[in-house]
């Protein structure tokens, strides 16, 4: 059975800190890994990663995938209170569009 595990489950830091969120996966015929940010109800798309070693970057957020070790990280630099949210990663297998989600990391940024 496909499985995605995130760590830590919860993280509290001060504004300005840099955080690294982890995601490991076991997905049959792995195709891609997606990161989402969930603030209220709707997860909003952040990144999709398919190739090892290629960093995806958007502002202060970046992510990279290691297909050999089966994990991905999401980095957020110079954190702001608006970064407080649950961050979800999800794996997708080849030939399937459905996503298998991890438990999420609840990130809290204190001023």
């Amino acid at each position, binding site marked *: 059975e496909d499985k995605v595990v995130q760590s830590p489950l919860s993280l509290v830091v001060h504004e300005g800190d840099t955080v690294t969120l982890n995601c490991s996966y076991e997905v049959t015929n792995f195709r891609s890994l997606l990161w989402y940010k969930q603030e209220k109800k709707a997860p909003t798309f952040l990144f999709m990663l398919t190739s090892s070693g290629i960093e995806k970057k958007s502002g202060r957020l970046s992510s990279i995938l290691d297909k050999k070790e089966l994990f991905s990280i999401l980095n957020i630099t110079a954190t702001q209170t608006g970064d407080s949210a649950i961050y979800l990663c999800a794996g997708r297998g080849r030939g399937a569009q459905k996503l298998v*989600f991890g438990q999420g990391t609840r990130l809290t940024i204190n001023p």
Partner: protein
Amino acid sequence: SAVISQKPSRDICQRGTSLTIQCQVDSQVTMMFWYRQQPGQSLTLIATANQGSEATYESGFVIDKFPISRPNLTFSTLTVSNMSPEDSSIYLCSAYAGSLDTQYFGPGTRLTVL
């Protein structure tokens, strides 16, 4: 990206009743999905809504409890039938955007069953 709307955004229902949630996408999409997120939990896929045929349900979810319709490429409904308090969750519709090879989510429906 695909813009997805859902209604209602929230509802409070009595035990034993049913609620139908509607999902509308602003463009034709090949695949639509329904997820559930129970309090404090991550997202769990309920089913894939197939246009013109019966939905494909994941293990632990059945058509009698969660009937799904998808009459065309932009619209789907999920009904939560004979509700109990354990059905209190956020229900999320999502759509696969083939051109971007990714999946987008609607704003969700927060359901509380008393």
